């Protein structure tokens, strides 16, 4: 097995784990962790393609740096919202956030 394929398989596994986490977890923080796994699986793809795909430029590396910065920004906002949820409801379980429905 060449090295690109093994990286892509790891990234696909990470992606699936993230997807599974988002779908099954009810804890707001755990859902965020699942989303981080999805973003990192994409990052791993970018780096692996750039390193082993025979590409001349560094587009993939640069893309992954941008993704890391944005993931941090997104985590800050999402955690602030979840802290606010905890203040309002005394829980981070998203099933308890059920004011809006219909």
């Amino acid at each position, binding site marked *: 097995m060449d090295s690109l394929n093994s990286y892509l398989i790891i990234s696909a596994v990470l992606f699936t784990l993230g997807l599974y986490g988002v779908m099954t977890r009810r804890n707001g923080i755990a859902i965020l962790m699942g989303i981080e796994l999805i973003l990192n699986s994409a990052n791993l793809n970018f780096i692996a393609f750039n390193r082993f795909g025979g590409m001349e430029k560094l587009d993939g590396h640069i893309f992954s740096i941008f993704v890391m910065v944005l993931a941090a920004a997104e985590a800050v906002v*999402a955690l602030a*919202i979840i802290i606010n949820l905890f203040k309002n409801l005394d829980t981070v379980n998203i099933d308890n956030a059920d*004011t809006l429905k219909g």
Partner: protein
Amino acid sequence: MISNLQSINYYIPELILVGSILLAILFDLIPPLKKWNYYIALIGIVATGLFLSMSFGSDKSLFMGMIAIDSFSHYFKWLFLISTFAVLLVSHYTKELDGTHRAEYNTLLLIVLFGLFLMSSATNLIMVYLSIETVSIASYILAGMLKGNRASNEASLKYVIFGAFSSGLMLYGLSWLYGISGTTSFEGVRQALVSNGNPLTIYMSILMMLAGIGYKLSMVPFHFWTPDVYEGAPTPITAFLSVAPKAAGFAILIRFFGSVFSNSDLTPILGLEWPVLIAILSAATMTLGNFVAVYQNNVKRMLAYSSIAHAGYMLMAITVLSNTAIISVVFYLTIYLFMNLGAFFIAIFVENKLKAKTIEEWKGLGFRSPLVAGAMVLLLMSLTGLPPTAGFIGKVYVFSALIENDQFYWLLVVAILNSVVSLFYYFRIVKSMYLVGTDETAKVTPHPVILGCILVLSFPVILLGIYWSPLITFIQSIL
């Protein structure tokens, strides 16, 4: 290719906007200047508009092919400027936002506006992701602006979880597009896909891309957040989210599918069948939006489902993606901006003055505020697509784009049946305003600024319904 340093000469409107964002943050930090923050935001938008109009007609690829300054993005930027300006004006006079950090609110709106500018001009995969995230992250905060309010808090929670999830899916799709092509520019990706693309991987990337963009358009099956966020968020933000990011989503969808997954004559690459996929999603989007809207009692929630349905109508034109289809969708978006913003502004007024959230509570508005109720009837007629309003003309152009290309007649039938359904729930509001009796007879009038915004937004709806040819000729001449 224009280098980064030279690009700055053509990037002045955006730089003015960034400058006013920084100034707005600075003014927020200095207590005596804090009240000027709002005026800085307004002046920033006006100045951006002035410099934007000076750059009209240029067609350039800036920052090493990262973004394109062309008439397509130019037109969309005007839509964003108008909607942000109107929302900023109205937000200042709504009671709903009392007790929140208004200065942060104004600044965040400007940041979203900058992100929207980038979305409409992105021509690189990196820029697509960056611009969508810029808009999203600031919108999450805006949706949760009412901190102690459970509904607003819940809206922002649902928004951030769905948003981060679907942009994660899109990013994974982008990583595969990059892997296949080895480049991040739209043109390079298209060439690589045509020369050595495998249909299966391209379909996978298309699906993943549709997750990210479809979430911005509230396209089925990525629409779940829409009703909750629209109901819970402050109403001016709901008005903004239902118009500007949706328009930007269409801009990015047209540019991405038109230049990556289509040949230069706008036919799908490698004969792929993605138009069928979009046709099915479009039919599902409009049907779900219209049928669920029938059962809603909350006005904001009903308008949320109606905005899902309108996204479905506009997606119809993306299925053919011919030149006439692009013109029709841009025309429809322009009309949609006026009618949807107008309807939401009336909802803001009713919520402020009558504390009314449900359709029943709108009763007697026809007698208590005849001018506003009349404008609402006009806007609802336009949202339904009845002549002689602009909504009718918009629908005619979208439908004719499909007929001209001799494709998807079944989609046309679905859309026409849907319009009939929409008549039912829009006119429940009219019925409540005029036909339900009420003991309250005291006249109510909105704040002059809100009334002005409502009238200014309603006027084009009737004008473009009667005399639309100048606008359509203008759009044809620039696209």
